[in-house]
């Protein structure tokens, strides 16, 4: 079977794919949740941390959605 070699490593590869797929969304989600909660529990530095933690997802959207130049194609 032509796929026998790749099937041997399928679980490991699938895991790597999953990590690659969810790494950024999970990081953004954890940051968002931290930002939502830290400002609620702590004033002062807590507020500043919440601005940073929620500001990063907003910056990510602006960067990937609008600001980033499209990759050069040959």
């Amino acid at each position, binding site marked *: 079977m032509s796929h026998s070699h790749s099937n041997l490593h399928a679980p490991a590869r699938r895991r790597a794919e999953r990590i690659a*797929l969810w790494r950024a969304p999970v990081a953004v989600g954890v940051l968002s949740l931290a930002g939502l909660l830290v*400002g609620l*529990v702590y004033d002062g530095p807590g507020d500043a941390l919440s*601005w940073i933690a*929620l500001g990063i997802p*907003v910056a*990510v959207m602006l*960067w*990937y959605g609008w600001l980033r130049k*499209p990759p050069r194609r040959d």
Partner: protein
Amino acid sequence: MSSILTTPTDVAVPAAAQQKASHRFLSSAAIRKWTWVHKWSSLVSTLFMLLLCLTGLPLLFHHEIGHLLGTEAEPPAMAADAPRVSIDRVLERAMARHPGKVVQFYGPDEDDDRMAFVTLNDTIDGSEGFTSLMMDARTGEALPHPPFDEGFMYVMYKLHVDLFAGLPGKLFLGGMGFLLLVAIVSGVVLYAPFMRKLAFGTVRRDRKARTRWLDLHNLLGVVTLVWAFVVGGTGMINTWADLVFKYWQNDQMAQMVAPYKGLPAPASLVPVQVASDAARALLPGMQLRFIAFPGSNFSSPHHYAVFMKGDTPLTSRLLQPVLVDAQTGKVTDSRPMPWYGTALLISQPLHFGDYGGMPLQILWALLDIATMVVLGSGLYLWWKKR
């Protein structure tokens, strides 16, 4: 395929992904099911969600807009340490302006302790036709203030909270909020088959509009995910406020005032300042949030219900009622909120975004706008795909 989305079997996903997607993350039957869930939960709720996002935007800045429009009460400049008059003095002045009406509620302004609000009504237990006054806490005089129930911000508020339809309107919007949560969860499930061959944040600008908007929908959708889930979920919980409060009245309040059941209404009332002082003495670490008068909806015919709040960012959102016998001025009971009351009260700031100053309000507004782009692009993708 009658899906709202260009599914992984569509041209939007590279050909290589097509063949493998079916057995990698989800079977194609599962993808079809989740697509159906995502399509219908979104389609039914989208227009209402767009309305909520639009009306929520000015509501985020209601204080700032109020100051600009001159519709916020402004206490005149006085020495910073000008003494405050007693609560009873404030009420006296409020009632003098509205002879024949009775006071239902009193409370210091949350943001500016030079002011206090007084709510009056024709009857003590009336739940409509309130007259609200902003009073100067240093002189006891009413501050000029336009009516609370008209103008642009009032329309925004009503559209956002109950569509001018009272409790049924609230519960309806709560149902739409639930559909939003379903749409978010199903959207996350579908993110995997769409994105597994694409790097995070890929927006294929050189492709046709539908592909570009699909990419943008996936990017903004997954980034706003947690924020939208929290704001949507807490918004839904807030629509149950009236019901939660009713339940609390029949549960905790009824237990606390049970010993007074069947007794005649008090012949005379102690000054409300006495009740306020008694509550402060009982809970010295807390501050007054508002007082409900005997016979009003938040109290019993025999008690001043003095609602106290904590003094940390989190506990200042919570309430603890202190029941003070209106005839003797003695505290008769006080219980912290049960879990469901706490859940409701914590849901408020998480929905309003009012706990981290102006930068948090601005971030809330940007995330709100991003959510509108997700809603709009979802609608567009469905329209193109029909």
